[in-house]
Structures are given as C-alpha cells and as structure tokens.
C-alpha cells in the first residue's frame, strides 16, 4: 500500500512541533486577513515571503498555504455578518449569509460555513493525494477552445445567477465586459479605454472593483439609514444550526465540494469561480429557488464548501505540474523557487516528505481552523453589537489599505472610491453588482481565448465543435439559453423577482 505509506510519511512530517506551529500561525493569519476586507492572501503572502528565507522550506510552505485556505474561512465571516466579503470568493456567501444574519441566524450561517468548509477541505485534500497527478493531466487538455466554451457557459450562468430582471443582469454583465476591456490588449499590444492613464495600462484590478462595489457602496447605503441597516436589529436567536438547517445544508455541501474540487484544478479557476458556480447550481436544483437571496442556508453551504474545495484543489496543478492557477499559487511558486524547490512531477519522487508533508498539513490546518472558528462564532457575532459609527471608519481604512497594497498605488484607492459611488447608484437602481464582477472576470477570458483559438486553428471556427469537451460545454450552454427563453421558466423567474420586490 504505497499510498498509505505516503500518507503516513506525510503526517509524520507534518506533526513535528515546528511544522505544527507554522501551520497554526498560517491558519490564524489567514483567518485574520480573511476577516479584514480588502487585505487579500496575495498581498499577505508577498509581505511574508522575505521572512520565509529564514525558515525550513516545508515550514515556510505550510505557513503560506495555511494563510491561503485560512483566508477562505475568514472571508465568509465578514460576508455573513456585515455583508462585506473579505475575499472575492466569499462574494456569493454574502447574498444569503447576510440575510440569515439579519434574521438573527448569524450563528447558524457561520457554523454551517465553517463545517461545510472543513468537510470540503477534507475531501479535496484526499482528492489531491489520490488523484492529483491524473487530474492535472485532464486540466491540461483545456485549451483555448475549451476555455472559450466554458466562459460562454459561465456568462449564461451569471445571467441566471442574478436575482433581478434579466435585462438588468445582462446590462450589468455588459458593464463588466466593458470594464474588462480596459488596459493593454494581450493579442495586439494596443491600449484600450485607458484615456492615456498609465495606471490603467494593465486594466483595472479585481480588488479595486470588488472593494468599491461591495465594500464602499455598502457603507454608503448603511450611512443613509443611521444606526440600523448595517447592524442586525433583530436579536440573535441561536448560535447553532437547527436539525432542519443540517438536513438542507448537507446535500449542498456535497455538491459544492464536488464542483469546487473540479473547478479548482482548472488553470485560472480556483476559489472564486467555484463559489459563483456552486451558488448557481444550488439555485437550480432547489425546489424553492425563491428562498435564495432571502437567507437560504444552501446558498451559504454550497459556495462555502466550493470555495474551500477550490482553494485546496488549486494546489494540484502547482504541485504536480508547477503551474500556478492563480495569483496566490504564483506567490507559492515564487516561495518554492526561493527555497530551491522546482514544483513539478519530480517533487513527488525526489522530495516525497515535502510533497506529502504539505498535503497532510493542509488537513491538519483545516482541523485547526474548525477548532479556531467554531468557538469564536460567539465573538464574531459580538462584533455586530459594535456601533456602526465606530465600525465603518475601521472598515474603510482596511478597504483602502487593501486596495493600496495590491500595486502600491494611490490611484487605485481613488478608483475604488469611484466604484463605491457607482455601486451606490446601482443599488438605488436595483441592479445587482454580482453579474458585473463575473462579466469583468470572464470577459477578457472569453475574448483572449476566442482569438487565441482562432489564431491556432488559423481562422477555422470548426475548432469549437471538433473538440469534445468544448462541444459538450457549448451544447450545455445552448440548453441553458433555451431554458432561459422558455416562457414558463421565465415566468416563474420573474414572479420570484416580483415577490422579492414586494
């Protein structure tokens, strides 16, 4: 049983006092930066990278990895309690989590989020250990054509994800696509919509838009109605989910885990895409889609499981192929290189203690996070009793620090404030900013992959239907599109919307 030998090796490496200590430090730091909106794991990793010079390689990697998945736990806390997603990946958690908190069920939402994350973390860690190398091979077969079709599918999902009218959702996606155009075109090198501002040459940072539209806009809305909306007026009835909550949540956790594990493997995927997709899925399979947006526990359980699973499984392409699937993984790649480790298939053979030790530590870290987070729920909930006039300046400061630290530019802070006012206007117009974000992320992917696929196929569009994965995704998109147009379904969707308005 080579697999079990490897796991035993991994655990025996991971439980040395040093490694346990750094696992704990990483998990704690991760939770903290996750709770603080705007300060993301990428910035934190960048700050801590030089410190890891003085650590043994494994301890350094364990700590840095802990920060990443710890942030997934922490990010959901502020999303649920103050409708401020600490991380991009917890944007969807805020939709239903915050509603639950408003109904006095913040404790239940936080507990389900923590338990769901732990379950997903466990499963995807096992997945990483068992199927890592094979799965990574599959991810490689995703070429430009497949990415194009996947993005089409994602954009259609985004339309359905929106709770408002289809027209408004499409409008918001359109604005997102436009914002995604800003910057230097990868294919031609020419500038688009930069208005000559050198700060816009590389486009607008995701964090800038997210913090502006969600963080700052939320604060403005809250200030409009003094001392009530940001805080949960109703008393907190329970700190623990009910039996009914568990019954509803566990299938959602299972689905979210599966989806997140799969999407995390894809280069460019990871926690954020997983969470968005899981929310759409939950809404689709639910018998009462109307509950979503009003405190459906599945809307918290699914995405929370998915973002943690996605965060864990995005280690697969890094550890098995040396390919970072997102910015955080790129930071870890940098850390490994500093320590003279070349991520790739050779790590598993040449340094099995490192590879398996890191995997084992992830499970230990997840356990630690559960232990840290469950007892702390009471404390986080207490945070809500802090008067808003004291809370919002602190949140604003963290937002600004977070935005500034992305590229060390004051320009970005000003831009985020601008997006804050824009987000406020959107709320007044009852337009959901969620689809905008997705349009912003998926738009450039759609365009570059379309052009890339056409370049490689030398102008033949048949490449999209000749490749099986791409074809399957396009068929699924077509089906989704038809569903959106079928009068009966559209009607129920609009009815739900009318009720929400009422």
């Amino acid at each position, binding site marked *: 049983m080579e697999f079990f030998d490897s796991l035993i090796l991994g655990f025996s490496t991971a439980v040395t006092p040093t490694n346990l200590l750094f696992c704990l430090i990483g998990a704690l730091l991760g939770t903290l930066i996750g709770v603080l909106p705007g300060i993301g794991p*990428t910035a934190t990793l960048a700050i801590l*990278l030089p410190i890891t010079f003085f650590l043994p390689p494994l301890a350094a990697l364990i700590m840095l990895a802990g920060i990443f998945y710890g942030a997934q736990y922490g990010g959901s806390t502020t999303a649920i309690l103050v409708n401020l997603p600490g991380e991009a990946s917890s944007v969807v958690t805020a939709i239903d989590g915050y509603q639950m908190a408003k109904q006095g069920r913040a404790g239940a939402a936080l507990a389900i989020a923590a338990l769901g994350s732990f379950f997903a973390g466990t499963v995807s860690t096992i997945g990483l250990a068992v199927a890592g190398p094979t799965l990574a091979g599959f991810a490689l077969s995703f070429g430009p054509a497949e990415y194009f079709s996947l993005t089409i599918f994602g954009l259609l999902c985004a339309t359905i994800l929106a709770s408002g009218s289809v027209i408004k959702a499409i409008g918001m996606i359109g604005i997102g696509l436009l914002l995604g155009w800003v910057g230097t075109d990868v294919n031609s090198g020419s500038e688009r919509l930069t208005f000559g501002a050198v700060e816009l040459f590389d486009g607008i940072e995701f964090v800038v838009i997210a913090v502006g539209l969600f963080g700052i806009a939320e604060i403005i809305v809250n200030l409009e109605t003094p001392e009530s909306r940001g805080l949960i007026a109703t008393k907190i009835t329970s700190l623990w989910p009910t039996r009914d909550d568990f019954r509803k949540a566990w299938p959602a956790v299972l689905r979210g885990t599966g989806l997140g594990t799969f999407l995390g493997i894809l280069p460019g995927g990871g926690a954020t895409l997983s969470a968005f997709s899981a929310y759409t899925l939950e809404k689709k399979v639910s018998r009462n889609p109307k509950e979503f947006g009003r405190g459906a526990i599945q809307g918290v359980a699914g995405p929370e499981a998915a973002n943690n699973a996605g965060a864990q499984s995005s280690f697969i392409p890094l550890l098995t*192929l040396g390919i970072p699937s997102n910015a955080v993984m790129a930071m870890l790649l940098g850390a490994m290189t*500093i320590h003279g480790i070349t991520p790739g298939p050779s790590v598993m053979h040449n340094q099995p203690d490192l590879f398996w030790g890191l995997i084992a530590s992830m499970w230990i870290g997840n356990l630690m996070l559960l232990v840290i987070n469950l007892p702390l729920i009471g404390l986080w909930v207490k945070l809500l009793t802090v008067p808003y006039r004291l809370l919002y300046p602190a949140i604003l400061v963290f937002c600004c620090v977070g935005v500034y630290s992305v590229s060390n530019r004051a320009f970005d802070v000003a831009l985020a404030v601008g997006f804050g006012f824009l987000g406020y206007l959107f709320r007044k117009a009852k337009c959901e900013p969620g689809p905008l974000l997705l349009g912003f992320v998926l738009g450039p992917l759609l365009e570059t992959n379309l052009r890339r696929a056409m370049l490689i196929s030398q102008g033949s569009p048949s490449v999209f239907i000749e490749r099986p994965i791409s074809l399957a995704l396009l068929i699924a998109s077509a089906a989704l599109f038809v569903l959106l147009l079928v009068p009966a379904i559209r009607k129920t969707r609009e009815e739900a919307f009318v009720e929400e308005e009422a």
Partner: protein
Amino acid sequence: MFKVLKTLCIGALTVSAAATAAHAEWPKDRPIEIVVAFAPGGSTDVMARAMQPFLEKELGAKTVIVNKPGASGEIAYTYLSQAKPDGYTFSFINTPGYLSMQVQRKLRYDPKSIQAVARIVDDPTAYVVKADSPIKSLKDLIAQAKAKPGSVSVGTSGVGTDDHLAMILLEQAAGVTLTHVPFPGAGETRTALLGGHITTGGLNVSEFAGGDLSTIRPLVTFGDKRSPEAPDVPTAKEEGFEVFMSSERGLAARRDIPADIRAKFSEAVKRVVESPEFKEEAKKLALPLAYLSGEEWEQQMPKRLQSFQDIWNKTPWVQ
C-alpha cells in the same frame, strides 16, 4: 518638570543634529528604496528578494523592496524618474522591455533621465517544445513552417517581449511565417505547451534550466554562445540563423545622482554577484549572472535600441 523638558529638548536637538550630519554619510541614515517593476512572486521580484540580504551586507545599509507593477515597467520607471536624486531610490530595469517601449510608444518619462547602474543577469531567450514533440531542432521547426505556412504557432509572454521580438527576427532570418500566440506570462505559455495547444513556446533559460525537464524539451537558445546553465542546448547561430535575443536585468537610478554614490552602489552589486554565497542562491534560481558596470551596459544599449527601431520600422509589433 522643567528640567525634564529641558533635557528632552537638548536630546531632541542632539538627535536632529546627528541626523543632519549622518545625512552626508550615504547610505547609513535611512533605507534605500529598491523598486521592482513587476508584481511580487515574479522572477525579477524573487531575484530582488534573494539579493536583498547580500546587498544590505555589502552596502552596510537597510534596503526596502517596493513593487510598482504595471505598463511593462513604465510605472516604475516613471516613479524612478520623479524620485529625489539623492541616491536613495534605485529601480530594477529589464530589457528588452525597457528599450522596446522607447520605440513602440510615447512614454510618460524621459528615458534620458535614467541611467543604468549595474547589469546583474543576462538571460537568453529560448524556444521549448513538449517533450514528445516530433520537432527535434530549430531546423525542423523552420522546415515545418516552410512546408505549411502558419502551421507553427509560437506562444510568447506578450506583445513586444523578448520571445516575441526573437520570433520576428527569426521570421526575417529564415523567410517564414509563424503564428504568434501571445499569453500574459511564461506560466500560461508553459501550460498551453504542455496541453499541446501550441507548437513551441518562448521561455528564458532561467525559466527551465535546473528545473524539471521530463515534460518539456528546450530546442534552441538565442544567446551569442551556449548558456552555461543549459550547455546541451544549441544556439540559433549554430543552427544557421543569426538571431540574438536575451532578457537582461539590472539596476538603474536617476542620471543626476552623485557619481560617487552610483559607483559605490555598482561596486556593491558587483561584490554581491561575485560572492560564493550569492552564486549558490543564484544557482538555485538558475540565474545566468552576468555583471556589467553601468557604463559598460549603457554602451551596448544604443545598438540594441537601433535594432528594435529597425524591426519596428519594418514590422511594427503594435498596430
């Protein structure tokens, strides 16, 4: 009470006087800012952070690494050109981007206001293929491009980068048409290569040498001679194509900083590059160290700049 205040005042005066005196003694009184024009975790950033402790030791001063990513370095260079010329701000510069941007667009800073201080690395551009690719040499690649024009796709890390410029030069030298497929970075190029979506990909020697070569196979480097980091890989010249391209990294400062500070800094960088401890670090990162003084490096630049201008005049790479 009054006595305490008086003592405090005298203390404060002494400290401020000492600070003024120490100001003359560059660089002991405050940290030197070293700007990296790219995001944390990138190869320039990793190199900068690996060098930092050694450089601090040689200078006997504190340094701070500040990332100013964006616009292929222009944001950092603009920042550098606006810094005080007191020898407390340096920036990494990377060629060919530093030179090619002078050709391809109107810049927000005057390139003449910046002067190279020391070159650290000269990293040849290379083309790699998937390990099981039927293409065994650059000649094979050119032969395929001749047989089926446009069928050879070259993944690069962006428009106007060294691998893209090497591709344009190769097209001219061999009289072939290649299909350019730009990616946002070397990581994405490598992924597309491993997935078999592109024929060949442009990487620098440091990006594959010393790494895992079970999945990719380097085809050719565009150095003027074989790279010590990849001695088995032939150069384009050996294969009969006069194409030279590399990516250099080094440090620069404002042209009007005191000359002795520039010389001291350059010397410190030289001692770092020559120290066995740093060489050991550099080996881990597969960095092709190639120190040049600022003057030597600047002498080479007009020739390269002119060659980019020539390429640009024939085939502007940005429409």
